[in-house]
């Protein structure tokens, strides 16, 4: 059974004179113990989506199943109880400014009716996990952003949740603090076996900790799968735009009629260099080995989530006989090879 399953989820917002479709027909499965990223530009609907996971937003159509339980069928009271299994952290931490650290962390337990003294005891234990034992009496205003997020994480863990939703949890933090928070989330995922859903617009966050990722654009999940796979060979335009950056300039050259004519002949191949393959002069060696000319149509290096990634588009001429061997040769050297049809 999946930890979270969405079935044909749609959310429409009714404004005064028109409807806004924030989410359109989204189906997803997130398995237990996964760290699952949902990435997209602002306005793509990812924050609305994550709020459907605990029914802070009620979907207009479709179902949300948490461990097989349909949230839409729960009563108000049952839903509130269910929410204690689904903790959430936020971009702006959302701590009570008038309560100290221990009282903030105790809040979910107090809400569940746990005795104050017990809640405080548990809060102090949680402070150890997030390495803030010395701050128990501090107020949020006295803490740095990273420390506030640590308190928020401790608070989220207080009710022993099975799922942790992170809504742009690192977006307000500097890169170093982001790294340390991501490390903490990784540990929590591993040691407490909590399923984590990361909503973010930061590629490096997904690259750093997620195993699977969904790419969202305009309320639709355009692509979904393993992080490695999607980051190395994005299929859809939206995914390419998000991961590889704006490619419109390159496209312009390829739209040129002369170039188009030239492209008609021969097989076109996109090669993606990952870290380890950048050291060997693969293409030169290939030409030497097969003794065949190739046409380099374009090459580029991109910073994808903090990792340099090279991409080259080559064209094999009509005379090339051993196409299959060439492709196998490239693949053997750890490159991702993809044949390109019309849409270059």
């Amino acid at each position, binding site marked *: 059974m999946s930890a979270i399953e969405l079935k044909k989820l749609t959310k429409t917002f009714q404004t005064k004179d028109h409807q806004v479709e924030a989410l359109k027909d989204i189906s997803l499965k997130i398995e237990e113990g996964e760290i699952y990223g949902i990435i997209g530009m602002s306005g793509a609907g990812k924050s609305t989506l994550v709020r459907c996971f*605990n029914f*802070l937003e009620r979907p207009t159509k479709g179902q949300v199943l948490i461990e097989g339980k349909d949230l839409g069928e729960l009563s108000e009271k049952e*839903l*509130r*109880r*269910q*929410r*204690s299994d*689904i*903790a*959430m952290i*936020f971009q*702006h931490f*959302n*701590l*009570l*400014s*008038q*309560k*100290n650290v221990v009282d903030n962390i105790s*809040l*979910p337990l*107090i*809400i*569940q009716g746990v005795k104050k003294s017990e809640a405080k005891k548990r809060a102090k234990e949680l402070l150890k996990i997030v390495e803030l034992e010395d701050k128990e009496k501090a*107020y*949020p*205003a006295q803490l740095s952003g990273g420390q506030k997020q640590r308190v928020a994480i401790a608070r989220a863990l207080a*009710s022993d949740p099975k799922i942790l*939703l992170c809504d742009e949890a690192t977006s307000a933090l500097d890169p170093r603090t982001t790294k340390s928070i991501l490390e903490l989330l990784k540990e929590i995922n591993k040691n407490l076996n909590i399923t984590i859903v990361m909503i973010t617009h930061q590629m490096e966050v997904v690259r750093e900790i997620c195993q699977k990722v969904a790419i969202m654009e305009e309320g639709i999940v355009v692509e979904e799968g393993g992080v490695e796979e999607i980051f190395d060979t994005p299929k859809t335009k939206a995914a390419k735009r998000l991961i590889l950056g704006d490619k419109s300039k390159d496209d312009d050259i390829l739209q040129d009629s002369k170039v188009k004519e030239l492209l008609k002949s021969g097989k076109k191949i996109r090669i993606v260099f990952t870290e380890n393959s950048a050291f060997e002069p693969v293409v030169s060696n290939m030409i030497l080995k097969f003794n065949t000319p190739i046409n380099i149509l374009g090459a580029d290096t991109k910073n994808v989530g903090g990792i340099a990634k090279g991409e080259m588009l080559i064209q094999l001429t009509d005379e090339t006989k051993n196409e299959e061997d060439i492709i196998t040769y490239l693949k053997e050297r750890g490159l991702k090879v993809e044949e390109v049809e019309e849409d270059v």
Partner: protein
Amino acid sequence: MFSSEVIQMLITGVGETLYMTLVSTLLGYIIGLPLGVLLAVSDREGIRPNGILYKALDFISNIIRSIPFLILLILVIPFTRMLVGKSYGSTATIVPLVIAAAPFIARMVEASINEVDKGVIEAAKSMGASNWIIITKVLLVEARTSLISGATIATGTILGYSAMAGSVGGGGLGAIAIRYGYNRYETDIMLVTVILLIVLVQVFQTVGMKTSTRLDRRK
């Protein structure tokens, strides 16, 4: 400078003014605080929107607030007589004071609660908090500082109103000022009462603001 009777009278006046002000503020909050919470909660942006309830409360509180206090004093005399048994004196004055103060207090409470960060409310919801818990453990806690400075303003306003009630048979410093200063041209007594009123307002204001700042954890 003053005879002992006059001094005795001023002391009694201060006592009556404090009695009217503090009791009215307390009763005003007993009615106004829940009303203010209801206003904030039933608002379109509130945690449990309810258009009809909001509009009804909004309408009532606006009507009462738009009646000048002096006229309200006279308007509610039959009601006052029914509750207290007479329509003059300090205790009788508390009735119109509470009626005038409650909607004013409700509005200030509403404003204080509306200042609470929506993100914190969302966080509480995500923990499975009921609306009652959100009100008691989040809204009233986070709005604490603002509520206290609101109470300070309310107390000052009610003190001013209580002095006004002196003109139609209320007690306290206001009554003394009108009886001696206005009716009998004893300007010195009037001046002293005014100074005493100023001192009282200053004391309330200082204590209120100090408390509010001391309890604020945002800095």
